């Protein structure tokens, strides 16, 4: 059983710095032809989701905190992203987030699951750049 006491828990938070090297690696691994040129300061906007590595927990720690065994194969079910500005290379962002809800469901396709919703917000200084609402599917 998941630890339902974690609802409304705020992540410790962390920082995200997107450099040219990691941006090029993500472009390469997703087939994006744009290499980060010196005059192109926007990063790949998928770094909004990669910021998940900067919430103050590793994903392993996050799943342990939920009391979920990662060997059961968690999956992303839904993800809604709002952008208030583009993410840029060589800018240091602050990453925050919190767990919104945990719900049980019986799925015809994959059996008993827990649905965990959480939000991740990215700030430059005090200005919000993006917010992302994740829906994770955790098989029981």
């Amino acid at each position, binding site marked *: 059983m998941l630890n339902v006491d974690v609802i409304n828990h705020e992540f410790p938070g962390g920082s995200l710095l997107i450099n040219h090297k*990691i941006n090029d*690696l*993500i472009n390469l*691994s*997703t*087939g*994006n*032809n*744009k290499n980060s040129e010196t005059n192109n300061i926007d990063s*790949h*906007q*998928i770094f909004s*989701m*990669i910021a*998940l*590595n900067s919430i103050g927990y*590793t*994903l*392993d720690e996050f*799943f342990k905190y939920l009391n979920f065994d*990662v*060997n*059961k*194969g*968690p*999956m*992303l*079910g*839904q*993800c*809604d*992203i*709002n*952008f208030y500005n*583009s993410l840029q290379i060589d800018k240091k962002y602050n990453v925050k987030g919190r767990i919104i809800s945990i719900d049980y469901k019986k799925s015809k396709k994959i059996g008993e699951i827990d649905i965990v919703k959480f939000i991740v917000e990215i700030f430059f200084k005090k200005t919000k750049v993006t917010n992302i609402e994740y829906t994770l599917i955790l*098989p029981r």
Partner: protein
Amino acid sequence: MNYKTGQKLNKWTFLVKQEYLVTWSQVLNDPNPIHLDNKKVEELGLGNKCINQGPANIAYILNCISSNFPEYQLIKINNKLNGNVFADDRVTVEGQISDIEKKKDYLIVSLFLDLHTQNQNNVLSSNAVIRLPNR
């Protein structure tokens, strides 16, 4: 550039290699074994090849938008994952313009996009809103 509601986007396609799944696991510091161990995928009854990371699938959608609209600025994107992309799958993203709102100096363009593989339709469906210069 003249855009029309209902206008189809140019298809975007990509061959997903296992090495890219390894990259994503490292970048995300993702401990989920379904991305790295095909035996675990078999054990869970999900297939026989490693499963691609969900954010990578969404990155393909963004790449399709970027290749069709190089000057785009993303405002929002909602994504629903209905299936899995596996290592060695060829993904294809198709889409169309669902709405256009003309402002004085720019356009707000709504898009519907769909990602499929050679084996499964509608793996991922996305609704995006982008801003484009109005020239």
